[in-house]
């Protein structure tokens, strides 16, 4: 392997990161061509209007995904840190169980439950999604912190790092790859879940899928479904880039 030119080695080790955006772009082009070459009836034109429906839905979809992921991180990472401190370690089991139940509930049921409790609107959807994706981020934060070599922390504390310094300068940087893997999982789950948000009036690309089913129009159904899939792939790609860039060197 060492004899390969650097460019080839770069491509090989980053194959996934290079192929994914090409795939997404190809999918988007295919979808565009398909929509502009098939015969459409009036309802199709209406449902697939870019400015009227698709663009706002795409924006809603992304914003639901990003807000819920942001809340997930804000809740789960500090909670994970707390639950790996000696004082609160014993609470880890029960809290992890609650987070697991969040993910065990069917997404559909969870969104409807949140609706019954918090009413219509995008924020209800955001909270439902946040609760749903708490688990992967919480668990990965805990696992990530716990897999840090005890000897490294011991050495740091032994040289006079305070508990907080040991956490921020040693444990967190070393746990980042695992935590980010959890965040990436959460993001992808959220893109899928956000497709159900239209049920409680929170918009998203699920509305187009639903129209396609109701109208029994394949172009509409296909467009909604394909766009959701492409968003998931694109989001995952961006997350992978972030993961790569935040991974501490030396690991």
């Amino acid at each position, binding site marked *: 392997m060492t004899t390969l030119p650097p460019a080839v080695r770069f491509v090989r080790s980053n194959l996934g990161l290079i192929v994914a955006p090409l795939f997404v772009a190809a999918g988007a082009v295919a979808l565009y061509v398909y929509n502009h070459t098939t015969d459409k009836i009036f309802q199709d034109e209406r449902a697939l209007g870019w400015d009227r429906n698709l663009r706002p839905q795409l924006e809603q979809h992304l914003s639901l995904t990003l807000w819920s992921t942001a809340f997930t991180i804000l809740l789960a990472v500090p909670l994970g840190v707390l639950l790996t401190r000696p004082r609160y370690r014993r609470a880890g089991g029960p809290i992890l169980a609650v987070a697991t139940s969040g993910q065990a509930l069917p997404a559909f049921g969870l969104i409807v439950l949140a609706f019954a409790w918090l009413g219509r609107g995008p924020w209800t959807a955001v909270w439902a999604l946040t609760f749903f994706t708490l688990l992967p981020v919480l668990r990965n934060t805990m696992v990530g912190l716990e897999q840090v070599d005890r000897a490294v922390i011991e*050495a740091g504390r032994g*040289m006079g790092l*305070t508990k907080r310094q040991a956490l921020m300068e040693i444990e967190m940087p070393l746990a980042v790859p695992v935590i980010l893997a959890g965040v990436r999982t959460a993001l992808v789950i959220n893109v899928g879940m956000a497709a159900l948000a239209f049920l409680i009036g929170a918009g998203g690309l699920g509305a187009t899928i639903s129209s396609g089913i109701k109208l029994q129009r394949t172009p509409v159904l296909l467009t909604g479904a394909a766009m959701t899939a492409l968003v998931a792939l694109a989001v995952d790609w961006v997350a992978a880039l972030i993961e790569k860039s935040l991974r501490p060197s030396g690991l």
Partner: protein
Amino acid sequence: MTTAKIELQGVGKRYPGTAAPAVANLDLQIPEGEIVVLVGPSGCGKSTTLRLINRMIEPTSGRIVFDGEDVTGVNPDLLRRRIGYVIQQIGLFPHQTIAENVATVPRLLGWDKARIARRVDELLDMTGLDPNVYRDRYPKELSGGQAQRVGVARALGGDPEVLLMDEPFGAIDPITRDRLQNEFLRLQGELRKTIVFVTHDIDEAIKMGDRIAILGEQSRIRQFDTPERILAYPIDEFVSEFIGSGSTLKGLNFERVRDLDLSGTFLVVQPDVDRAEALARYEQSPERWMLVLDPQQRPIRWVDGSHLADRAVPLERAGRPVIALIEPDATLHDALERMLLSNAGQAVVVDKQGRFQGIVDVEQLADVLKRLRNQAKKHYDELAANGAAEASQPEEPG
């Protein structure tokens, strides 16, 4: 005992819910500028004792005094920045470069960047790593030996007066370990830090320690003395069992050939000697072998009566070659090894130019061992007679 750099006064550690304490009522004085080795069987609490000193483990009783200052209650994080700490697993920060690792304590102490950079280069140099090569590398690119060098450099970062080392060379292959130990002793010769060193390996303890504390259960001190005296006179069954059967031989490592009395009379001849006269001398002497020296006084052959009698063979080629040569700086342990290899059961002492100085035999070594043992015994008898101190307390070597 005002010269003690660190003093443990009745220090104990009892974990909640356990009947017996892990460390029971320990009194220990670590003299300034010395390496004190804590050694004992697994589970005797030696690592715990070490970690009580920098309060990685908080003692449940007693006081820790540092330079005359009671540090049992001070902020442990600030205390630890004054004490270097090296552990067996090294624990380099994998996400930081070697330079960043070494800079840990200076950074915590708030030094400015230029001073930190100078200090890092100085420390890497000191521990035998070229700063230009290693400064920007990451720990995963280092071998075990190199990583431990960085570990030592990092512990010395803030120029602490005290260094705690917990089996620092324990996970390193024997050849590299030996080299690191030697380099560390050379470094210590310059730095003169006060060092507490934990190991379970008595040979490492003997090699590294200015003093050795042999610890039993619950970190009770069974004997605390110089390695020479412990080897010459293990105070009880426990100690002698722990240091093992080879202890007498290990004691020979501390004595040098030059300190022996080499003034005895030896049978030496020049190759061109009158054979009849040499033979006469040989027969009058109780010695079994005669040493042939060349004109520069360098030993060349061992010969006996039959070789002297056989005039056909010149003495330069008669008898057996001299292989057991040894210089005055060598230890008696080396001398013994040479002796066992030698044809004559004796080692020939020569100076740097290879000129004959004298001969060492097993009897002389036995005498040395007897003398060491008697001295140590006398030392302990005097201590007991004075009744002033426990037999296990440190005294200046006599």
